[in-house]
Structures are given as structure tokens and as C-alpha cells.
């Protein structure tokens, strides 16, 4: 397994992060939470991402769009090093979280993932009770106090707009929830570790319009406090919920800009073709 074990603690560079790097940050957009510089990504010998330069703003929603197989998920996973689990992957270039390279040698992957949470396309509740699902993150982080845990579970479920539906059945199996509820449970689970960034890979792609709307509302709520990166195939969704949109095509970042501007007035021909549905 490529999961690198590093026992040095990930230093939270909250204090020195702002002045360390970033001369090219546009002042209007503020300091980026995450920044990738000249990033290339390889699955073995196959290159999946080419020279990605991208800034993700703090407390905002950044949408990643693009045709299937263009590397959106790969990019998203590289932001919390979930790709390390896949055998034979390799990254070059820099991925900075608060100005700190997350691929540098002294970064602890485990604490990185506590800061950068992830919600997958397919909801993956653990085969345990609803309570245990949410409490898993805090528990492995060392939280054992029962009342603390209860507080965390309640707060996370409320944040994920699931509390009212499940508050009477916290001890029941999470597998018995509906698809939409499961997805919100996964979001709540990601929130329970109190991350700074939440990565979402097509979180609403398997859901009905009502559940999708709830998740979109949820994202809207969450961006007050969290930095959110979301992959979506739904243009309207991207337009509705995101401040920034990045368009990927065959492993390259074609265009990034304010969502409104990118959808109404794209600078690249490819982007225009894609968002107007004339792609391919």
C-alpha cells in the first residue's frame, strides 16, 4: 500500500500561511485556501493530469466540471491524498493547503485528511449504527467522552439537515436509510471531524430532485464556514451553488473563473462548447 505513514505531526500553518507564498494571488479573491502549482498526476505510467494551476478560495464553493474521464475525481482526490491508497500513483508539482505543501515529506496524511474531508459519489455508510457512523471520525481522533460525542453527532446531523429524520433512530443501522439520507449522513460524518475543506465528488448524482435540492441547500449553508470543492456533471447545479467554476478537459485545466462569468461569457471555445452541450 502506498499509504505513507508519517509520524511527524502535521503543523497547522495558520499563522505563517498567509505571508509564506502566493505572489500571484489576485487581491480581489483573497488568500486561496488550496492552491495547486504545476501539478501532474500519474496512474503508473499513464498521466491523468497535466500542469494544473488552480486556486481554491476559502469559504466559497468551487465547482469542477468537465466531460467524463477528464480527471476531475483524480484532482479532487489528490487534494487530500486519497490517491495514495491506489497502487503506483505519483504526483509532481505542488499542492498547497494554507501555503503548506501537502505532499512534502513531513506531512502526516492522517491529520491532513482530518482537515480535508471528503464525500464520495456513492454514499458509503459504515455497516454500523447511525450514531457510530458519525462518531467514528471523532473517536479515532481520540474523543472518548460520551456526552462530547453525543454533542458532535447532534451538531453534525443538524448541520447536514438530517437530525429531524433520524433523531429517534440513532442506534439503528445506517444501511436502512434511504439513498438521499445516506448521502447526507456521509456529509454529516465528514463534518463531524470538523474539517476546514470538504471535497465532494458528485454528491447528488444518484439522488432524486428533492434530495438534490436539500443537498444543495446544505452546501449553501456550509460555505459560511467551510471551503467546498464539488465535482458535478450538472451545469445548473454548478451555476446555482458555486462561486468559482473550473472546467477540465482530458487532464488539463481549460478555464477557471467566476461561475457567472464562465457560464455566460467563457473565454475558451471548448468551455463554450461544453456548457452549451455541443461538446464532442
Amino acid at each position, binding site marked *: *500500500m502506498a*499509504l505513507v*505513514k508519517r509520524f511527524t505531526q502535521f503543523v497547522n500553518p495558520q499563522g505563517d500561511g498567509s505571508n509564506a507564498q502566493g505572489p500571484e494571488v489576485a487581491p480581489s479573491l483573497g488568500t486561496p485556501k488550496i492552491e495547486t502549482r504545476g501539478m501532474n498526476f500519474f496512474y503508473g505510467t499513464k498521466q491523468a493530469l497535466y500542469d494544473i494551476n488552480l486556486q481554491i478560495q476559502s469559504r466559497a464553493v468551487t465547482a469542477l466540471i468537465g466531460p467524463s474521464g477528464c480527471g476531475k475525481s483524480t484532482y479532487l482526490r489528490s487534494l*487530500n491524498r*486519497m490517491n495514495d*491508497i491506489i497502487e503506483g500513483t505519483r504526483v509532481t508539482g505542488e499542492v498547497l493547503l494554507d501555503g503548506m505543501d501537502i505532499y512534502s515529506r513531513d506531512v502526516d496524511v*492522517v*491529520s*491532513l*485528511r*482530518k482537515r480535508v*474531508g*471528503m464525500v*464520495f459519489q*456513492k454514499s*458509503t455508510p*459504515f*455497516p*454500523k*449504527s447511525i450514531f457510530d457512523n458519525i462518531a*467514528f*471520525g471523532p*473517536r*479515532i*481522533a481520540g474523543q472518548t467522552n460520551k456526552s462530547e460525542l453525543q454533542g458532535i453527532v447532534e451538531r453534525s446531523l443538524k448541520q447536514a439537515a438530517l437530525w429531524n429524520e433520524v433523531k429517534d433512530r440513532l442506534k439503528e*443501522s445506517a*444501511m*436502512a436509510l434511504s439513498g438521499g439520507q445516506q448521502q447526507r449522513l*456521509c456529509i454529516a*460524518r*465528514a463534518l463531524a*471531524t470538523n474539517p476546514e475543506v470538504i471535497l465532494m465528488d458528485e454528491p447528488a448524482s444518484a439522488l432524486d430532485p428533492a434530495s438534490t435540492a436539500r443537498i444543495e441547500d446544505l452546501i449553501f449553508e456550509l460555505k459560511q464556514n467551510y471551503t467546498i470543492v464539488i465535482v458535478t456533471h450538472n451545469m445548473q447545479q454548478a451555476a446555482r451553488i458555486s462561486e468559482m467554476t473550473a472546467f477540465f478537459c482530458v487532464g488539463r485545466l481549460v478555464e477557471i473563473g467566476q461561475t457567472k462569468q464562465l457560464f455566460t461569457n467563457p473565454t475558451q471555445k471548448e468551455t463554450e462548447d461544453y456548457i452549451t452541450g455541443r461538446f464532442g
Partner: protein
Amino acid sequence: MKLGDDNYERRLIWRHRIGQCFEWLCRLATMGALAMLVVLMGSIFSSALSPGRGSGLAPVSLTDTGKNLDTQGDLTYTVSKIIGGDFYFTSDPEEKIKSFSGTDVRGGKVVFNHNGKRAAPVFDLSVSDLSGGKEPIGKFKEVGPGRIPSECPVPHVHPPKPAKPWGWLTWNFLTNGNSDDPLQAGIMAGFWGSVWLIGLTSLMVVPIGVGAALYLEEYAKPTMLTKFIQLNIANLAGVPSIVYGILGFTVFSRMFGAFDKQVTVISMKFLQFLGAKPIDITLPLGPVVLSGACTLALLSLPVVIITSQEALRSIPASLRHAAYALGATKWQTIWHQVLPASLPGILTGVILSLSRAIGEAAPIAVIGVAAHLSFAPGRITGISDLIQNPDKLIRAPFDRFTALPTLVYSWVNEAAPNFEHVAAAGIIVLLATLLMMNGTAILIRQRFQQWNRW
């Protein structure tokens, strides 16, 4: 071919029929399997619950043919080739007799001493009248149940009382040690021997097997060496149990002959504060519970490893990824998510292999376990005994023992009558023990399974 034409419809009909045929075939196969099970269990239960053949003195009477024989007075019967016992005069129970008269029989002077080998005796008979020297008036071969001649009255032996009118699965059977007498033979020593054996075996097999599976599945890199080990484990699962028996005999029971029983004695004195005598362990272990358990552990280990690996492999990668994404380390992911989720599968493998192990007679016999033993391992006689002498719990693994399949096997081989019923009762106890042990595991499995609905 157009949609809706004749040909198409005929095809549809045939497709439907073939489907139905297949369903019926499957149904038939299930019925067949069920029928076999019913026949098997039925024969075992009927044998165990049958009263068995009695032995001892049985009264003899003459059959009533309804004919009025034109004979000169009394008839004389001469019997030969008797199977199942001998005729005696009531007055002299020492002397076998071959010949007696009808009057003797009518007068109740003749008895048959039944040895229980057959349900009723079978004998060759020649009948003559009183004049004696003349030709016999009748010669009959193999007179017995179902072959009673109708020409003249013949002696008829009434069957003795059945040995165990309520079957063989009695309280006595459960609490007695083994014995040469089928009426006294019991299964207590074998039952506790098997319980100890399986307990120790599972204590060894579960951690080692699951640990090995975890290592091979989660940690080991797929090198040539890992593949080689993997292949070997798969092959070991198919090795006949007698081979493990020989291995167990050499390694655990005899210890390569490296020790001398008189010389090498390990004395455990740490229990002396309890007032117990030191526990002496002589070093070729011999056929004790521990060597049996080690042998069975080796026997069931490959299956446990393989099924546990299979169970671990069946956990979707998404579960691991979800745990990693929450900041779990590899160890936390395995311990908190992967292991609990795969526990039902792992337990299934453990149940299967331990069930096989508990029923194995061959390897246990090879390491030198005797059937004729009438004490439980450690000579524990009951709970009160155990409370008084807790050191017996430590003595037990180093004590000689006998196991359920060994007992059943010895009873099946026993020549004396009625032992087949004892064996059937033993098989039922073996099956019940198996069910009890599996039931516990199945309960645990269900507790975990209720969460797993992928």
C-alpha cells in the same frame, strides 16, 4: 424473423418451458438432498431410540399349528447350529441341552439363554417321536422368526425383555464413562474431551487464522513469496486429515522422541498459593488434550485462513476509502471497519472448519487417543469439584482424554451386541454438541450481520 410471427411465439413458449423445467430440476435436487438428510437422521434416531435386544433367560413354548398330529405320544426335538444362545433345563442352568421333549417344553422346564446377538434365535431342528431310533418325522433348517414350519409344533423362544425400553439416549449414557457393557457405556468422558479439544483449538485457530489472513490480505505485498505461501495454504486445505494426525503424533505427541518421559518433567509451582499440588508435565506430551488440539488447529487453519481472506476481500473498497477519508490510519480502518464488517464471513469459515475438526476421528486416533477412558480431562467431576480445585483447569490440557468421534468409532467396531445403538446415541450427542457450538457462533454472526446490508 418478425416480432409476433408464429416462429417467434413458439420460441417464447419453449423458452418459458425450459425455464420451468430448470426450476423443477433445482427443486428436485433440493428434495433429493433433503430426503437423504431425513433418511440419515431417521436411521440414526431410530437406532438410538430402539429398545435394543435383550439377553438372558427367555421362556420357550410350542407353536400351535392347529393340526392334530398322528404321532405315538410325545415328540422329541433335537436342535443344532443354534445362533443367539442355548437351551437349558430350568433345573440345571449350567448344562446346555441339545435335545428335549414336547412335554418338557409344555411343563415350562426348558428355557433359552439369549445372548442378544440376534433378535430371536435361529436353529436347525429335527423332530422325531418317542420311539427315538426311527427316522425323524421332520427336519427343518434355520427355524426362527419368519421361518416357522407348519407341519408340526416346534419350540418357540419368546424374546427376552428389551435392553433399554426407552432407547439408548438416557441420563446414564450421558453421565457414564466408557465400558465394555453396552448397557453401562456412556459418553461423558468423550463429551468433555471434545469440548476441551474444540475450546483449545478455537483459541489457537481464530487468532492465528484471522491474523494470517489479515496479513496476507491487507499488508503483504503481492510478491512471488506471498503467492507461493498462498498456493501452499490452498493445498494444505485439501490434505487428508490422517496426514495431520501423523504430523501431530510425531510433533506433539511424541515430540520427535527427543525427550524421556521419566526424565523431562516441567513442574509448574506457581499455583501453590491456592493450596494445590504442583502440576507436573512430562515432556513427550503423549496423547493429551493439548496435542490433540494442536493437531486439529493445524488441520483447520488453512480453511480458516482462506475463508477469512475471502471475507476480507469481499469488503468493498469504498468502505476502506470512507474510513481513510475521515483520517483513519490503516490499523484503525482495519480494526474498526474492515474486521467487524467481514466478521460474519470469517465466522462462517471458523464454523465450517471447526465443525470438520470436531468430527475428525482419524487424526485423534493416530496421535494415540484411547476410547476406554472414564474420566473427563483433568478428572473434573463437576462444578463443585472445580471450585475446590481450580488447578484442574490447568491440569486438563495436559491430561489424557477421549473424544466423541473416537468413542463412536470404537463402538461401531465393537462386536458385542447392542453397541450399534450406543454408537447411534453417541452420534446424536456429537451432532448436538456440534449444533451447540455452531449455534453460539451463528448468534454472534447474526449480531454483526444485521448491520451489513450492502
